[in-house]
């Protein structure tokens, strides 16, 4: 028979280094990222984020594959889509934020974890920044990685040579990260703001979908009725960041956009984008104002 022994190892005071608010925000950001992409959780929680990452990478892989297969044929240089259009593919990550944003913010309220978080050296604003940073950085990474895959692949299969391809597409190197950041910050702020209004994940996820779908329908109705002379599309919260994307890539509103015929359409889109972003951030900070120092 095995003999056990109980050892009372007592208590060792901690006299090592301690970080302040910055360390607290970083720790909360790390924990939220882990949670959102399912690390240290069951495989089921990993399916959605990594499945979506795989899905948004497929177009890049196909495009590069076609580029490689046709590089010595008359179809050489054929491309399914441009980098600008591929940023739009990342808007499918709305599905991701509709699930993950509620998951990183609602349980803290529902399971009443907030009091033990705010008993530590951080404020309500720090909490918001950590959560915003977590969702924003994941959306950025998941949108940016496929673009990197596409760019590296195109560079490698380019007939003119890698250096020539990079030189010819140098502007992509700043346009893509900026456009992706525009999308990531917007999706993170909007989805977290909506999720912060309820402690229930399911309700929050449905509300995120609801707001985007309803705003799209409203925009279509306004456009069809020609009520606002092409400005109805500004009510489409899903399309707004894509208008800003076009400003980054093209310097103006895309010709296919309903805003194309509107004087100052680009500025209007940018201002509306900033207003929605500002309102979302306002709601978020307001919801956690009670924990301000």
């Amino acid at each position, binding site marked *: 028979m095995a003999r056990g022994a109980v050892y009372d190892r007592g208590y060792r005071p901690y006299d090592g280094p*301690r970080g302040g608010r910055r360390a607290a925000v970083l720790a909360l950001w790390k924990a939220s990222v882990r949670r959102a992409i399912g690390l240290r959780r069951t495989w089921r929680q990993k399916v959605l984020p990594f499945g979506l990452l795989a899905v948004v990478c497929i177009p890049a892989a196909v495009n590069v594959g076609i580029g490689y297969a046709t590089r010595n044929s008359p179809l050489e240089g054929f491309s399914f889509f441009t980098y600008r259009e591929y940023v739009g593919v990342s808007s499918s990550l709305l599905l991701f934020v509709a699930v993950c944003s509620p998951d990183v913010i609602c349980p803290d309220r529902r399971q009443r974890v907030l009091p033990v978080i705010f008993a530590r050296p951080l404020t309500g604003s720090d909490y918001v920044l950590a959560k915003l940073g977590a969702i924003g950085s994941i959306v950025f990474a998941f949108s940016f990685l496929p673009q990197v895959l596409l760019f590296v692949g195109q560079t490698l299969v380019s007939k003119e040579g890698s250096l020539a391809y990079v030189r010819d597409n140098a502007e992509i190197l700043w346009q893509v990260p900026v456009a992706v950041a525009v999308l990531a910050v917007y999706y993170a702020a909007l989805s977290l703001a909506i999720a912060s209004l309820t402690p229930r994940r399911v309700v929050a996820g449905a509300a995120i979908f609801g707001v985007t779908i309803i705003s799209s329908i409203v925009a279509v109705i306004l456009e069809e009725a020609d009520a606002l002379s092409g400005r109805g599309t500004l009510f489409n919260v899903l399309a707004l960041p894509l208008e800003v994307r076009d400003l980054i890539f093209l310097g103006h509103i895309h010709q296919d956009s309903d805003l194309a015929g509107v004087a100052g359409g680009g500025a209007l889109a940018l201002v509306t984008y900033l207003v929605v972003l500002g309102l979302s951030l306002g709601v978020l900070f307001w919801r956690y104002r009670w924990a301000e120092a």
Partner: protein
Amino acid sequence: MPRGLVGLVGANGAGKTTLFRLLLGLARPTEGTVEVCGHQVTADPIGARSRLGYMPEHDCLPLDQTAADVVSTLGEISGLPARAARQRASEVLDLVGLDEARFRPVGGFSTGMRQRVKLAQSLVADPELALLDEPTAGLDPTGREEMLALVARLATFGISVLLATHLLDDVARVCDHVVMLDGGRLVVAGPTETLLHQTGKFTVEVNAGIGRLTRALTERGLTVVAAGEAPLDGEAGGAIDVVVGADPEPVLDTIRDTLADLGLPLQRLTSRAASLDEAFMGGEL
């Protein structure tokens, strides 16, 4: 408040949790100032919180995470480096008796185990002062004993404790000092021992002749009051309280001699110890 184990006693709504919120800087005082471990809370709430550990009364744990993950993550949010937080989490979970269960999700824990995790997360950053809100709430007698034993040990580790409870017995058993609140106001504060014992009375209980004893002691210059509901006259048995002056010895001699002279059967002669309940109800000390 002094260092060590301090009991914060009061009925529901007395202001215990509000006081904790004030100490954590999550509420602002309408007047006056709050100072915690040398930090003015209003001016420097972050500095104050970095010295505090907090165990809320209510559930406060993410149910789908393991105890080790919960405690180490909260340790990191307290400012510990990641590796140190993991090590401290392991140590404090060991300390509270959850060494083997720490890799299981909290959602599968019993109430007692969850209370231990809550205590562990409050200790993970080695606080100077731990604010424990009703740590024995919902525990069975064995669990309560174990939790009180853990709390009592904290002072030996150099961690001061402010233990909020409405269970006076818990405070009487583990705390050095007591602060009693009622409706947001201070009722009484002082060392537990003082509150328990300094009543300045002896209780004398006899099986018969309580009336004769009362008269005889009064004639000999002592002040006698009723102890409980029993009358001070008649030939039945009963108990009386005799007020003691600065020097109890002559009073005890007089009581002994009077009992002997009257030939009354003595059942009990004790120093009258007030319970914390009496101190709380009367605010008498």
